[in-house]
């Protein structure tokens, strides 16, 4: 695909960036690097500091400590209007008194671009988001999805160094969200623009980003490729926040080994060290549990307490003595005859599991 932006992609670096509101640490020493043309998603629960980080990059919030570098240049003191960043907001934030075209041209007007070039750029952007026919419409005449596409076109029209997306899909319904998500990724790849995307929706982050950073309590818990984040979570928080995870009580039998229910398991090398005999929780994904035969000595036996059909997979909740309800994701064809109340046997199929101390929430 041809690149429609004439600007070379930028690097973005946050070095120990903190933001304190009184005694509250909204952001606590965030280190983050974005390579040129990379899309990084910051994922985390409400109040984890992801939006604060984005707003600091945009210049809408001031960092209490740390450095913000764009292409190696310190940007801490640069006002928001001089940063050359494009930002898309959750609430669209289109200017209601301006038409779609005028909204897109707004940033170019601020840069004193002449009328002909502005009109040409607006037309290109409208083509990019497939809204050519809406050029003369006002924002209130557009659907939510269309408004967000205009907001994206408006942010991109100024050829920003970095594109900042602040939960841009949150206000849209599920079907439109999927469409716009794909559109954002297509355009981002097409333009090769360095992008920081903030979301609390893990599916969204995993689907769109080159790398996903999981944040908690103002800190970056882990940043990695989506698949690595899912399969090799660095912390219990990441393991439980990204994807569905079962927490099953276990006991440490030796260094790096634990007994969970009937089975011996290896504890992930990335987990903290536990003392022998210590009570822990192991964290296992539903798809890392598989059905086994009753005769298998490692098998865990339980009773089916819940069965939810999810299309190709069926989520089965199993009540096991001495553990909370354990969820398994099993191919629907294998559990067709399984009913609530039936006995079931399963075992952990993962090579190693994440573990946490029991006193950790």
């Amino acid at each position, binding site marked *: 695909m041809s690149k429609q932006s004439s600007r070379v992609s930028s690097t973005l670096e946050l070095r120990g960036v903190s933001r304190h509101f009184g005694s509250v640490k909204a952001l606590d020493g965030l280190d983050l690097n974005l390579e040129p043309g990379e899309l990084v998603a910051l994922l985390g629960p409400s109040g984890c500091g992801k939006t604060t980080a984005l707003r600091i990059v945009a210049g*809408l919030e001031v960092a209490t400590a740390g450095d913000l570098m764009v292409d190696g240049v310190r940007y801490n003191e640069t*006002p*928001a*209007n001089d940063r050359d960043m494009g930002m898309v*907001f959750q609430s669209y934030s289109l*200017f209601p*008194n301006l038409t779609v075209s005028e909204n897109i041209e707004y*940033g170019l007007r*601020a840069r004193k671009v002449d009328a002909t070039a502005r009109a040409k750029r607006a037309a290109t952007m409208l083509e990019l988001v497939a809204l050519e026919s809406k050029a003369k419409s*006002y924002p209130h005449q557009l659907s939510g999805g269309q408004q967000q596409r205009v907001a994206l076109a408006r942010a991109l029209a100024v050829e920003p160094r970095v594109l900042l997306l602040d939960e841009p899909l949150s206000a849209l319904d599920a079907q439109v969200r999927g469409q716009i998500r794909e559109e954002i990724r297509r355009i981002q790849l097409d333009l090769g623009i360095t992008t920081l995307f903030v979301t609390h929706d893990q599916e969204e982050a995993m689907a769109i980003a080159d790398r996903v950073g999981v944040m908690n309590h103002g800190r970056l818990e882990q940043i990695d490729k989506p698949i690595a984040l899912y399969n090799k979570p660095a912390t219990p928080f990441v393991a439980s926040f990204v994807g569905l995870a079962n927490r099953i009580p276990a006991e440490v039998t030796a260094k790096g080994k634990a007994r969970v229910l009937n089975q011996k398991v290896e504890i992930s090398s990335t987990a903290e060290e536990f003392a022998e005999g210590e009570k822990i929780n192991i964290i296992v994904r539903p798809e890392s549990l598989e059905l086994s035969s009753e005769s298998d000595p490692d098998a865990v036996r339980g009773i089916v307490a819940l069965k939810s059909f999810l299309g190709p997979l069926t989520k089965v909740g199993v009540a096991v003595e001495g553990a909370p309800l354990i969820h398994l994701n099993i191919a629907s064809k294998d559990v067709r005859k399984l009913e609530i109340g039936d006995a079931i046997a399963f075992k952990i199929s993962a090579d190693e599991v994440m573990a946490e101390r029991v006193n950790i929430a």
Partner: protein
Amino acid sequence: MAESMKQKYFKWSLVSVSSILASLIFLFPLLAATIYSLKGKNGQGHSFDNYLWLVHQDGFFPNLFITLKLAVLAAALNLVLMVPTMVYLNLKGQRFKSIVDFICILPLIIPVVSLAIGAQVAMPSLLQNTEYELVFFFVVIALPYTYRALDTSLQTVPLKTLVEASRSLGASWTRTIIRVIVPAIRGGITGALFLTFALSIGEYTITSLLHWETFPTWTVVAAQQNILGAIAISVFSFVGAVILLGTIALVSRKSSSRVEVEE
């Protein structure tokens, strides 16, 4: 069914009769004044003599002009001062809002005599010698109304995100206010403009206390010479105000139908 129809009819009748009575109470004196102002010499026949007398009086046009000029300046100054102030208060200065709110109410609490004399003493001597000092007084007396008109309007728009969107697109604060905020709160600005303008063109007490002559003070003097002319002045002032109000309301409605702000 019949009972509900009966109740509906009763309500409709009550509203109609009340409206007609209210209109009559309002319109009768106005109609009477208009008819009276059109009486010819010695109360005989009808003519526009009283209106012609009015416009031929020395000082009619100069005073009307200066009043309009001062009112326009006051409205403009009020907006230049208050729009950025109100934007700041709603955006970043929430903690100062109650203080400013209190200050803006003061013109309603402080007696006009104290306000006029006290403020004139504080006025720079450069301004004390020109009628333009009245502009500042008009701004002050309009503050309680301007504050509320702008504040209400600003609270109906997603101010923070609009400002942040504009700033992130490279716009300066001035451009953001002129191109984004002002159009979004056009209704409130129109209201504030109208209130300042209306208060300014009708202001008598401060102008009189400070010995300046504007249209309201001139009409008091002029009215003492001709009783029918005085009534013509009243009708003229009232009709002028109604036309002004109607025009502004029309402009406001037109702009607000185009600008629909959504969160």
